[in-house]
């Protein structure tokens, strides 16, 4: 009986490792395929010789994308949005969460209800759009910053963390004559780095990847973000123009797919390169949300 069950257990273990290996493989293949494609020659791509390793390794694809001014325009716009929007997010989140973390603050209950209500009842897309429009934010960078200036959920994560800070310390700082703003900047933030970094990363990745916001609020092609740029590159065949323009001046002939893969790689690189170092912050953040208050 014992031997039999452990045999079954071992069969299961083997099966389990195989399944998990397969799942990991499937998670990686589409990404890997694009990465090797970005570094393969157009000839290899068009003759279907590129699978999961690069063929005729070349930097031509990457070079051409790097020389495309519209790519840089979109990348610069995205970087500006990420930096400005994340800064606004963090300032509003930290300063919004700090007073709410004080249980003795009068009006706290009302503020909390005010916050939670917005999480339960969400306004439809159009009235939000009309508000953004009437504020004159359409077709400006601020349309991607102000309408998503703070997330109620993140404020709650943040204030839960602040509550765990020793209140004696904050009181002592007050006795020493520090004002609340300086207490937040000099004591609360340095002591709360784990949650601050986690929220910062959540916000930043959200802005980097956002597609719906730019799609709704920006019509001007000069303002498009990387995500809009990539989507139109692939779905509307804009890469043909880049290839045609390049064919005029250079001797190399590239296929659209090569340009598209190179663009995808460049747009993903910041996140994928950063990911191994910050993975733990993300994982902590994901489980923080599951704590029932």
């Amino acid at each position, binding site marked *: 009986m014992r031997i039999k069950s452990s045999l079954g257990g071992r069969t299961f*273990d083997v099966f*389990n*490792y195989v399944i*998990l*290996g397969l799942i*990991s493989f499937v*998670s*990686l293949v*589409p990404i890997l*395929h*694009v990465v090797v494609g970005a570094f393969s020659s157009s000839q290899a791509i*068009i003759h*279907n010789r590129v699978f999961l390793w690069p063929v005729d390794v070349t930097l031509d694809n990457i070079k051409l994308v790097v020389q495309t001014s519209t790519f840089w325009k979109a990348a610069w716009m995205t970087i500006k949005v990420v930096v400005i929007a994340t800064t606004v997010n963090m300032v509003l989140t930290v*300063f*919004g969460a*700090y*007073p*709410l973390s*004080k*249980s*003795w603050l*009068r*009006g706290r209950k009302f*503020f909390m209800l*005010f916050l939670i209500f*917005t999480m339960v*009842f*969400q*306004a*439809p*897309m*159009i*009235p939000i759009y*009309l*508000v953004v429009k009437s504020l004159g934010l359409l077709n400006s960078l601020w349309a991607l910053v102000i*309408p998503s*200036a703070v997330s109620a959920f993140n404020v709650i994560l943040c204030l839960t963390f602040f509550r765990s800070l020793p209140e004696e310390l904050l*009181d002592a700082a007050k*006795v020493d004559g*520090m*004002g609340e703003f300086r207490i937040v900047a000099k004591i609360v933030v340095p002591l709360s780095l784990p949650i601050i970094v986690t929220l910062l990363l959540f916000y930043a990745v959200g802005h*980097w*990847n956002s597609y719906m916001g730019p799609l*709704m609020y920006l019509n001007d092609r000069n303002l498009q973000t990387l*995500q809009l740029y*990539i*989507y139109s590159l*692939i*779905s509307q065949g804009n890469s043909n123009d880049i290839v045609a323009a390049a064919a005029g001046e250079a001797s190399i002939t590239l296929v659209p*797919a090569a340009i*598209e*893969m190179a663009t*995808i790689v460049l747009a*993903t690189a910041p996140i*994928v390169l950063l*990911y191994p170092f910050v*993975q733990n912050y993300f*994982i902590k953040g*994901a489980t923080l949300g*599951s704590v029932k208050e």
Partner: protein
Amino acid sequence: MSERKMSYVGLPRKLPNSGRSIGKERHAREPLAKFIRKHWPLYVMVVPMLAYFLVFKYIPLLGSVIAFKDYNIFDGFIASKWVGFQWFETLATERKFLLIFRNTLIISLYQIVFAFPAPIILALLLNEVRKTAFKRTVQTLVYLPHFLSWALVYGMAYMMFSTQTGLVTQLLSHFDMPPIHLLQAPEYFRTLVVGAGIWKEMGWSAIIFLAALTGISPSLYEAAQLDGASRWRQLLHVTLPGLLPAIVILLLLKVGNVLDVGFEQIYVFLNPLTYSVGEVLDTYSFRLGIINGEFSITTAIGLFKSIIGFVLLVSVNKLSNKITGEGLY
């Protein structure tokens, strides 16, 4: 400078109070105006956040009244003419809307049946792995797609399935099989979208279940082993009951958002060839409202969506409280 002065002024009055310098009971007696004057920096701090919620959450919620009006830009939210339930009646009789409603429900059902259990199964499989290095590697790899935007996921899907250079197309031709027009074919659209969703989010969503698994007390497993329970029995009688609260809560949230199938997820894959099966409430709202400027009827769709979601959430929560003893509130 002045904030510093404030705290000095407040100081002597605080000290006689024993223990905590700031206690709830003491402030309760103070008039509100005085309290606010004393702690004004705290109130100044919350103002930007509250202003944001007021302008971008509450005003749009109130602005939803345009679902009952004939909105036009010049008259605005308030002065536009009332039309009652006219837009809702139009929707209820329009065949196109019913088709879109049906698409939304079908895709959502696919998500509940296929995408919802996937991370649970993944977490259970990972939980049985004893080699930490292997477990960590798998986790790192399956979490990665979560960080790619939907535009990039579309790009990668295109590179996998495009009929000229797609990887899958190549493999099919390798085995002399005809190419599948996966990205254009209506019959594959829902599978594609839900499959892409599983690919992107399965790993990441497993985190919550993995966290719940670590919360199960080891003594329960020890007791089960003493009673001679096999690994399978332990899974059924210890692990699954331990996961039940997390499963119920997430399922309730999903059911409450049954008409929310993910705008970006659908939109990037949608094209005129697949409108008939893939157009959902959100993508239709976007095209009708923002592209065509039909603000009122689109708001009616949005309001309809919120109300259905709210009613479902409340009733499913009630049902769940009765059956499993678990609920959101």
